[in-house]
């Protein structure tokens, strides 16, 4: 397939413009007018795509459902890709990490105290009784951590409990474990157990969605590590994290973005599937999956099913199209 750039531009603008459209248009999804129920599309000057049984506007519900889909999927997928990039990059770059048990344990304890103290202090601050001592204590813990970190080199002689933590092996085992629980089944089951809310939905989805990006990132970092510019950077005594951030990440991103787009498409499918089953998201959310679920057995009023289906196919199709463009060697970012 030969792809042209202007098509990609159309795809992206289609995806972006429609997000804000519902706010701008002033249509309402909750307005009921029983005199106008089951209006066919393209016949009324107000209801462009017809109305449903209660006389609600299909075009408004379509736009609103689109907004739900994107506003849920995009942040979750960004977060998942972020987690994947960090974990995959670390696993690929540091195959094994030498750990001094004593210093490591001390650090873990200090960091644990630090996080707990931050949590308590912020909670107190949000309740209105903040105290300066909490913040001072946080600073003190930070100082202790830094002290341990910098004195570690001297402790090395004292501590003979050094061992290698096989970060890469642990990473491989973890991804293997999580991907052998079927993703859809796990998410479906968990989504029913937890109370339906955006936060729980995101949590459940994140458990498995970081894996593809992480695997790809690890493979990319393993490839990039062999390159001469990494060797040159190491020869120049650059820090490991600096090399990862400045040299490895920009070279890995063109591959990661493909998996990102595929992940986004699959997340959109997942979201609509779960709302089709009426699981996971709060019941008042307007969503394409729910529109289809309510009307798919109604062959007479075809527009109620047709437009959400068309919308889903267009969005997912255009995402696949974008991924195809990048896979076939397209270099531009749009």
């Amino acid at each position, binding site marked *: 397939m030969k792809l042209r750039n202007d098509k990609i531009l159309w795809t992206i603008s289609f995806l972006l413009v429609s997000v804000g459209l519902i706010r701008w248009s002033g249509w309402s999804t909750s307005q009921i007018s029983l005199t106008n129920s089951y209006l066919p599309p393209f016949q009324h000057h107000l209801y462009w795509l017809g109305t449903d049984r209660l006389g609600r506007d299909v075009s408004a519900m379509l736009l609103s459902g689109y907004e739900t889909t994107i506003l849920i999927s995009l942040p979750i997928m960004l977060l998942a890709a972020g987690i994947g990039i960090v974990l995959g990059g670390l696993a690929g770059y540091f195959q094994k990490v030498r750990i001094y048990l004593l210093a490591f344990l001390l650090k873990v304890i200090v960091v644990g105290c630090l996080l707990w103290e931050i949590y308590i202090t912020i909670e107190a601050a949000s309740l209105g009784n903040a105290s300066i001592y909490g913040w001072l204590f946080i600073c003190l813990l930070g100082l202790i951590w830094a002290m341990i970190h910098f004195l570690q080199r001297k402790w090395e002689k004292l501590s003979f409990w050094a061992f290698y933590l096989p970060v890469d092996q642990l990473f491989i085992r973890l991804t293997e474990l999580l991907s052998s629980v*079927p993703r859809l*089944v796990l998410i479906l089951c968990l989504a029913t157990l937890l109370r339906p809310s955006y936060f729980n939905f995101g949590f459940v989805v994140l458990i498995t969605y970081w894996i593809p990006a992480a695997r790809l990132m690890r493979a990319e970092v393993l490839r990039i590590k062999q390159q001469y510019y990494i060797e040159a950077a190491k020869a120049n005594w650059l820090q490991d994290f600096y090399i990862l951030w400045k040299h490895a990440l920009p070279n890995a991103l063109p591959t990661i973005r493909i998996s990102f787009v595929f992940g986004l*498409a699959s997340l959109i499918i997942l979201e609509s599937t779960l709302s089709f089953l009426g699981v996971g998201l709060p019941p008042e959310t307007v969503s394409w999956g729910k529109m289809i679920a309510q009307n798919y057995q109604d062959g007479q009023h075809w527009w109620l099913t047709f437009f959400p289906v068309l919308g889903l196919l267009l969005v997912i199709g255009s995402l696949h199209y974008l991924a195809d463009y990048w896979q076939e060697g397209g270099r531009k970012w749009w």
Partner: protein
Amino acid sequence: MLSFIAKRFFSGFMIIVGVVIVVFFLFFALPGDPVSMMVGQRTDDITREAIRKELGLDQSLPAQLYLYFRDLSPVSIHKDTPQEQQKYDYTSLLCFGESVLVLKVPYLRRSFQTNRKVSEIIGEKLILTVILALAAMFFATIVGISLGVMAALRQNTFWDHFIVTNSVVGISTPSFVAASLVSLFFGYMLGPYLGLNGIGSLFVTGIDGRELHLENLILPAFTLGIRPLAIIVQLTRSSMLEVLSQDYIRTAKAKGLSYYKVIFKHALKNALNPVITAISGWLASLLAGAFFVERIFDYKGLGYETIQAVYNLDLPIVIGATLIVASFFVVVNIIVDLLYALVDPRVRLR
């Protein structure tokens, strides 16, 4: 080879153990109240306490994990009492005093709703889902490979573009959309002419017992097969094009072999390798994908049962189904790996 098999089986076993732990923590450690799921909100405290004791919820989390593993393991140690015998339905192997080493079917506890054993329910339904998945895979493989070969042979013609475009549509259609459209169109609108039902299971309990309705397999299998079909078409097409451009195909043509002999004997045999990888990978995920298709077509397999349990908050069935599908994944992966090792010696040496 033997050490490879042993290693593979051991790692598969460890993964299943890990899956059990993950599922346990996700379902038991998260906030949620199985007791009120089981008996509803209106009940007295004594009943609640009794149920908590029966489910082992009054114990600490590690103790619960131990009990859970003891229930699941086929070989385990139990007390030698008639109650335990009735609960687990075990065959004893060795007796030492009070306790006994037993062999049993993994005990997945009992359904909250019907109080039947979960392993019985799942065993009944799993076979229907496996039949559905195999039928879908069969359809997708046969049609997909032939369409892919056709597209590759007629590269850059109308048919090629037609097939490829449709396969992109097939990949991007969510399975519930495809299912509802197929059910509506072929089942209801064309149903009277085709003799197909919009919904229905493989076995229908009629007046004179269970009847087999094979025609109810057609639409679900078709729907479930659409996605793998589209992927197989694209894979076959690209690998076929790659093989066709290689030198030995030209040699075969120059030797004067007939067109079909070159295509099917020389090209297709080599082009099928990546396709077979994809097919084996898809077989396990079809089992999970069948959930929504079964739900819409009212096909009473494992997926239908699970979603029903999800609506009824029937926790043991949900956990049981998750574990079963996960172990199916692992087993299929082991079989595929072993087949690879058999075919390709390089895999063994790694």
